[in-house]
């Protein structure tokens, strides 16, 4: 009978050798190329705060976290400002996974372009600034002097104005960048959306 022949020991062995050969060929022909690195556009490895006083030399402070979620902690510089002085704070963000010549390197531009989805929030130790007063708008309802705005006229926070108070040390200054797609509105707060940045800097006023 046909099926007996079909499933004799010999023919079964043949089938198996065939399958083994085919899969062997498939394996060998599988490419042994190195994997391609991923583009990593959504990460911020470096943040630069530039406090520029009217007519004076700017105060530049950096925070660096080259390994992101890696075990090494972020390295945060200290902010030292002069007492009773007006500053304009501009914030820049960089993605160190790209070369400085690459357009992806400067995340600031992306945040600005997508301003309608982003907002920076700030908080600080009470008394550090005379204007704005209070403790800021992270988990609180204080004001921040935003000087930029998105296409809907809502603040972004890449540029802000500050007036320091009297000399003091041991204060903190917290910067939070929130991504709020379809969330950002006149009433959205630091509790809405996802955090792209959340860094606390030591602050002293001299």
């Amino acid at each position, binding site marked *: 009978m046909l*099926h*007996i022949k*079909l*499933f*004799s*020991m010999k023919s*079964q*062995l043949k*089938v*198996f050798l065939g*399958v*083994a050969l085919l*899969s062997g060929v498939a*394996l060998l022909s*599988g490419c042994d190329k*190195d*994997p*391609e*690195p*991923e*583009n*990593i*556009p*959504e990460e*911020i*490895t470096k*943040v630069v705060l530039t406090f520029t006083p009217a007519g004076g030399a700017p105060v530049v402070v950096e*925070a660096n*976290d*080259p*390994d*992101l*979620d*890696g*075990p*090494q*902690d*972020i390295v945060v510089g200290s902010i030292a400002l002069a007492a009773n002085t007006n500053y304009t704070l501009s914030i820049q963000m960089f993605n160190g*996974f790209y070369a400085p010549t690459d357009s992806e390197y400067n995340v600031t531009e992306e945040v600005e372009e*997508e301003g309608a*989805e982003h907002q920076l929030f700030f908080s600080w130790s009470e008394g550090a600034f005379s204007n704005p007063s209070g403790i800021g708008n992270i988990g609180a309802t204080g004001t921040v002097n935003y000087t930029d705005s998105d296409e809907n006229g809502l603040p972004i926070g890449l540029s802000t104005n500050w007036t320091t108070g009297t000399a003091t040390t041991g204060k903190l200054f917290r910067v939070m960048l929130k*991504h709020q*797609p379809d969330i950002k509105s006149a009433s959205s707060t630091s509790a809405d959306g*996802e*955090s*792209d*940045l*959340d*860094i606390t800097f030591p602050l002293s006023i001299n």
Partner: protein
Amino acid sequence: MVPAQDNCKLTISGVVMDESGAVLPGASVQLNNTNRGTATTALGKFAIEKLCKGRYTILVQYLGYQPFEKTIALENSADFSINLQPSEQVLQEVIVADHATTATRSNSTASLNSRQLAEVNGKSLGETLQNLSGLNSIQSGPAIFKPVIHGVHSQRILILNNGIRQEGQQWGAEHAPEIDPFVAHNITVVKDAGAIKYGTDALGGVIVVTPAELPTDQKMGGEIHLVGNSNGRAGTVSGLLEGGIKNAKGWGWRLQGTSRRSGDANTPEYVLSNTGFREMNYSASVGHHSENSGFEIFYSRFNTTIGILKGSVNESTADLATAMNREVPANTSDFTYAIREPRQEVTHNLIKVNSHFNCDKNIYRLQYGLQINNRKEFDVRRGASLTALPALAYTLYTHTFDAERETTISDLHTRCIGWNGMVQDNNKLDGTQTLPFIPNFRNYSTGVFWIEKFSHRKADYDFGLRYDYRHYQVAGFNFQNKLYKTEFGFGNVTASAGAAIKLSETTSFITNAGSAWRPPNVAELYSLGTHQSAAAIEYGLLLDEVTSQVNKIENSNVAPEHALKWVNTLKYQKGKWQLEATAYVNYIFNYIYLKPRGITETGRGPFVYFRYTQTDASFTGIDASSQYELSKKFSVRVGTSLLRARDVTQKDFLIFIPPNRGDVSLRYESLKNEKTFFAQMRLKCVAQQNRAPRIVTTAEILAAKDQGIDLFIQDSRNFDFLAAPEAYALLSVTTGLSLPLHNTKLDFRLSAENITNTRYREYTNRMRYFANEIGRNVSVAINLSF
């Protein structure tokens, strides 16, 4: 036959079991040439009394099994032990179908037969197995269950699906086995270490999932299962069709498919948002059997999308602390079937070709399997275009080859030798725009084994030995997104020895000692960064915490895991009593576990992180169960599982060890005119885990860190972020009715779990930090077999 009145005091009694030795309650027992008959009790027993001397033909029937028929000349009362074979089982088929070789009598096993599987109403594999003594699960929310045998889990449990080593991406604690529970005809769990025939990794045991044998007759048959659950408003439809081929003797085929869908589950008080799932599975097989050979091709596809509790995803440690302390998880919204981020999409394909042929005293078996496993994990990311991309995506190809020869040396002695080979290829799918969490890798594994089994007097013995070698080629990216490449290998020996001794008519003793090992998994070595659907940052064994570079394995002290497990089981059965007790010790050298390690500060705030760590661990425990027949219709069962686990190196407790538990159930079962009805009530009690590591809250870690103190440099003991949840008790009820209709059988079942809507948390559920367990669930099932 002229009965002499004086002699009509004889009894035919016995017990009816399936092929794995599990009792079959409700089987019909008839004496063919009389009108006498009965049905087996909940313990599978029967007795027909007041029989006269003479010739009788006993016929035992049970749906899904071949009828058993035997003619005896009754002189004295007789007692029988009857094992029914699944219907259509004509030959000793493929490796896995051959029970004697998968789980020998000298293994400590627990099984669920098709009838018991039907009673769980199509739950997932991991959830179903929780019902067996000594088994638990590691959960990630209401739909993801990973089986735990005697306290060990994940990579340490080998799952044999239809004879093939299941090779999915099992490296995550929230990666459930990719198996359709409706494919299983029975599930056997071998609790010993060292599955000699199937390679490395079985440090905790083996789960054997076996489909029914293919039919060989021309008759077409099938099954339809419909299940509805109130919690999650879930529905399941599963169907099966099988038959032979006309004018082609020996040929058989089967088609099977399952679709499951669930929305958000709910606790007694609130909805668990984003915990729904969708599943679509199917399989097809065709085969040919003749007296001396068999051949089968099997294909199956498993496809699921599972949501991860939205409230378990945290922005930072501060948010984590808040999330752990709030009663209702964040982002809890109204019930929906929609599954959003974070979620997993997993597909598992299996193609299997196997054959066997008999030659003199030898049976030769050959098998080839190809598994293609695709896993994508989606996360909330910056911008809709990035959220649409998986944050993690890998495809794993696994080729397995198995060849063996089993020789019958004498009636009391068999020998089996064989070879297994495996080639695995894991590749990331390009375009996730994230740092790859695990590297690409290829591994080549090969192993040879030798098993001897023999019987001597009242005992069965078996000895097994195997050697395996595994070679890895790894290419991944470090935290600087720079490529690293490396190659290395591990080789070692697995051994086991066991004996099953019949001490008396009522008592038997099984002892098994095994030594098993496994090479570290690639994820344990190289995990890097955020494993989002697990809501955790995880670092592999080879990640340097100071430089954040990936170390070379030869410059590290990473070693394979190595287990010594000794399991002893005592079985006692007399009259209405049945008792089984298992005691075990499992000592694992270089045990790899994910240890909460501390907090890493990033540009997005501080995050809790876990690190794979090696230690020596011991697991000691007892599983005991006892069943008693109160009457022909009522039976009561009591069971308990006790486990003590130690981190021996650090003289500490381990985290996520299942707490002690016990259960008691009362069952009523009646059979009348082949209609069976049963009702069962079960109370399950779970103790608080008092043997848990110390508590260090995130607030304490952060406060110390602000002062420049690393709490864990001073004290490296294990810790947990929250105390172990309190003890709880759950009550459930199941009732069922089976009706024979012509050549078909109709089953109705109604069950209610957590009837009292108790609020509780399970220590081994990773979501316990954020949310309660699910509340009451009422489930209705209809099965039709034709």
